[in-house]
């Protein structure tokens, strides 16, 4: 570190220095703390989205349900979808990108730590802004894909909040994506070539590309929607404009978005399977390239959400075929995961159970997905509960199971404590059973002709029985989530201490203490191989059998101590800052100002954001403290 003070006190405030307490979190730029905040916030939204789901299921438990009014139901299913996609699955993915990705790369932080903090606060601001609409009983009620012209014509503030809220969340995700891309390209430890990156990091990489290219499409469409609603423009809203344009723009974002939701979970599972099978990932390069292939092909299938729109047989054919073929790289991944298990030595710890659950459920979602590509029959399926079944098998059975696998897997690294295995197993089995009870019946209901997004269904349509089963299942899921929280509470004080490497891990995060120090690595590790840490612990004999390296010999092998020990003297981490928080606070204020047409308030919000950004630009990233 330089001795000359490069820092000038250019900001009006003294730099925050709190290391504990609320302000230490509000001003942190540490990727690990930001990751934790992402995770905790996403869990809070998961509970909210879950309560919405339970209310929906209560209403639908019996025909002609009276628990909710049509208006309440419409707000709840819309907010449930928005919450689960934008406020739960995406930020839970972001929690792991934030916390684990830099460590797995052997880095001390992300490329732009303050930008990272800003992403989080903008996400929180966007979420609070969306949810504030419940207080005036005007939450978005046009469905999560907000089809025009309905989204333009719906009275009340709901869909204005939808447009503004998603714009704010889009800002959050876009800057985060730029940040992570830069980090992965530039901040890999020496020797960490691209093809030595853990699959989770690879999938993170692909997801950030998808975000950077997909979100602008959505943002443009949202601004057009906002202008239609507030300024009276006519992009989508009347008979002279083209409401189909909205659908094209939305799904051009929306289809890559579903890969944004699922690829992180696929990355997590690809990390966990080898660890608990005591075998390397089968076909690492194939798994990586199929992830990239999915990322590319994901741009060519958007109109499979629009088969019944009347695009014509030629367009429907093209999108049917592209949709069928995206199943190929997806299947390849599944086969490679099974190949990883094959011949291994499988330990059924909780993270592994959730990973196996992920594969088993994702297969079902994938197969029903292929049946959607049978276009003439998709005319029957689309907008029914059959579709609702499909996307819950991929989003819940897939993404949520995969993310819980990640939570159980990395929990000991993050907290230093192991979650309880017995409670974890209970959580898993309750969730697996509840999940299938809830969503398997949707296949039947959909094929029997139950339309989605309907607040009531009549008697005598054959819908009664399976709806009741599904509602029971939803409460079993709720119980499983409570079990998880119980596990967290139970192990907080009395949990088993994890140590640095509780699972016999393969990647760099297991070389450092649990929880990691602020600077992650006292000495930046040098990477010699894929699964570098594993190769410090084991070698393969001539027959490819595993032989543990005796502790002393690790030194002889010449790289065992890297990343351990060393001393942390003189490591300067980026300084904390108020500015990302201030810049982000302005965003929901602008949102409220525009929603309620209080333009002075919008200007206040804009000034706050601008002031935050301005002061941020002037303050050095690392302030010399005296």
């Amino acid at each position, binding site marked *: 570190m330089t001795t000359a003070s490069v820092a000038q006190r250019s900001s009006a405030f003294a730099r925050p220095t709190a290391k504990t307490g609320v302000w230490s979190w509000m001003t942190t730029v540490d990727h690990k703390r930001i990751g934790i905040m992402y995770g905790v916030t996403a869990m809070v939204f998961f509970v909210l989205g879950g309560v919405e789901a339970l209310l929906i299921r209560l209403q639908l438990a019996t025909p002609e349900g009276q628990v909710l009014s049509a*208006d309440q139901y419409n707000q709840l299913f819309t907010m449930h979808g928005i919450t689960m996609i934008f406020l739960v699955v995406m930020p839970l993915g972001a929690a792991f990108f934030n916390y684990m990705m830099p460590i797995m790369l052997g880095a001390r932080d992300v490329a732009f730590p303050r930008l990272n903090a800003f992403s989080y606060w903008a996400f929180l601001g966007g979420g609070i802004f969306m949810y504030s609409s419940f207080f005036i009983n005007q939450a978005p009620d046009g469905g999560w894909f907000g089809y025009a012209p309905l989204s333009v014509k719906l009275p009340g503030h709901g869909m204005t909040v939808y447009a503004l809220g998603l714009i704010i969340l889009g800002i959050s995700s876009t800057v985060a994506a730029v940040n992570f891309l830069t980090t992965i390209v530039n901040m890999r430890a020496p020797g960490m070539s691209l093809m030595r990156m853990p699959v989770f990091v690879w999938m993170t990489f692909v997801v950030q590309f998808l975000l950077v290219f997909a979100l602008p499409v959505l943002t443009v469409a949202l601004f057009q929607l906002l202008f239609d609603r507030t300024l009276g423009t006519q992009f989508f809203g009347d008979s002279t404009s083209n*409401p189909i344009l909205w659908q094209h723009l939305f799904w051009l974002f929306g289809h890559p978005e579903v890969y944004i939701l699922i690829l992180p979970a696929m990355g997590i599972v690809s990390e966990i399977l080898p660890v608990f099978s005591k075998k390397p990932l089968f076909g690492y390069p194939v798994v990586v390239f199929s992830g990239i292939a999915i990322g590319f092909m994901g741009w060519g299938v958007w109109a499979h959400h629009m088969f019944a729109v009347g695009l014509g*047989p030629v367009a429907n054919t093209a999108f049917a075929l592209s949709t069928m073929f995206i199943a190929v790289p997806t299947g390849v991944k599944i086969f490679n995961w099974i190949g990883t298990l094959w011949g291994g030595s499988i330990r059924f710890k909780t993270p592994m159970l959730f990973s196996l659950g992920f594969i088993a459920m994702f297969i079902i979602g994938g197969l029903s997905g292929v049946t959607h590509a049978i276009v003439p029959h998709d005319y029957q399926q689309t907008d029914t509960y059959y579709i609702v079944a499909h996307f819950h098998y991929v989003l819940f059975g897939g993404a949520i199971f995969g993310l819980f696998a990640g939570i159980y897997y990395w929990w000991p690294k993050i907290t230093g404590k192991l979650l309880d295995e017995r409670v974890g197993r209970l959580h898993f089995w309750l969730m697996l059973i509840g999940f299938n009870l809830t969503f398997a019946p949707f296949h*039947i209901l959909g094929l029997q002709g139950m339309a989605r997004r309907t607040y009531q269904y009549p008697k005598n349509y054959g819908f009664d029985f399976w709806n009741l089963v599904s509602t029971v299942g939803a409460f079993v899921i709720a119980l499983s989530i409570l079990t998880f929280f119980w596990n967290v509470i139970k192990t907080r004080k009395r949990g088993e201490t994890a140590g640095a490497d509780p699972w016999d891990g393969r990647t760099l995060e297991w070389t450092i203490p649990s929880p990691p120090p602020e600077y992650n690595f006292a000495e930046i590790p040098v990477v010699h191989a894929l699964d570098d840490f594993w190769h410090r612990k084991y070698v393969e004999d001539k027959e490819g059998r595993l032989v543990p390296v005796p502790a002393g010999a690790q030194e002889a092998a010449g790289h065992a101590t890297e990343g351990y020990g060393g001393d942390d003297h003189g490591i300067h981490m980026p300084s904390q800052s108020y500015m990302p928080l201030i810049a982000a606070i302005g965003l929901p204020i602008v949102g409220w100002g525009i929603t309620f047409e209080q333009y002075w308030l919008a200007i206040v919000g804009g000034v706050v954001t601008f002031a935050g950004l301005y002061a941020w630009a002037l303050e050095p990233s690392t302030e010399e403290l005296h």
Partner: protein
Amino acid sequence: MTGRNARRNLRGVWTALLTVLGLFLVACAKNAPQDTLAPVGPVAEQADNLFRPVFWIAVVIFFLVEGALVYAMWRFRRRSDADAPKQVHGNTRLEILWTIIPAVLLAAIGVPTVITIFDVAEKPVGANVVHVKVIGHQWWWEYEYLDVELPGGGNLKTANELVIPTGRWVDLTVTSVDVIHSFWVPKLAGKQDAIPGKDNFIKLRADQPGVYEGQCAEYCALSHANMRLRVIAQPSADFDNWVRGQVAPAPQPADAQIVDRFLNTCFQCHTLRGIGSGGGATTGPDLTHFASRSMFAGSMLETNARNLAAWLDNPSSLKPLADLPAGPTMRDYDLSQSEIDALVAYLMSLE
């Protein structure tokens, strides 16, 4: 991890898988008026013929892949922490194999799919074809019989129930006046979106007489769930009779008070051929032959005096309605009891 644990896990997985499949199989046995698995018309049958083999292929793949997964979990469970499994990093031959097999399988599914896509997109031709324009409204359906001209000009318009002849192709032009809806009669055909400013095509044919239930399938706000419809298929001769009946104008009401009510209130939105209309604007269903339909209010309520009286008293107590930007929907017009009685008596006479 012990073998007992692994076995317990295994049993759980199998139970879960079998439950899922069991649920599927039971499904086919049930009778439901909107069941896509029990198609009646040729269009729905064609879709079903495509779906069934794909479904069974999917079932086979499901068992193969889940079976491999579960078998691997059981066979390769850890027996001792000293296990030293062979470190296999991959296998190019296998990778190629499991890329090509699914690709070939999908191509095989793709061919009949594409053929059927073009098949169902083909317009029926001939003098026998019935042409109807289907217009979605928040939250009811309007049908304009393009082949049936009225004596006073214009085409025959009805609402909620689509009456068609059996054994003849019906060529539907689907559109909307407000937001996007989707026209769907599962037993006869898949759905087609009704989009403002766009004319979509769908065809159906019912080979057996009957009542086929359907509903709007694209979310269209408050009463989307109540935007139901019915297709009534009758033998061709009955259909022709029905058309003749519908073409006739409505009889004059005996009670002058009713005319007054119609002129001032109902005709803002409704039409009563031979008596008056809202200047050609169709904000609400044509009432000329109201009582000939078995259901009203978006095929949500059975047509009878009690339901009608309650509806006229306060429609939103029966069906969630809201002021719509596209035009006002029906509301409580503060009709007196005697007005309601007279209106009900008259409307119920409009066979």
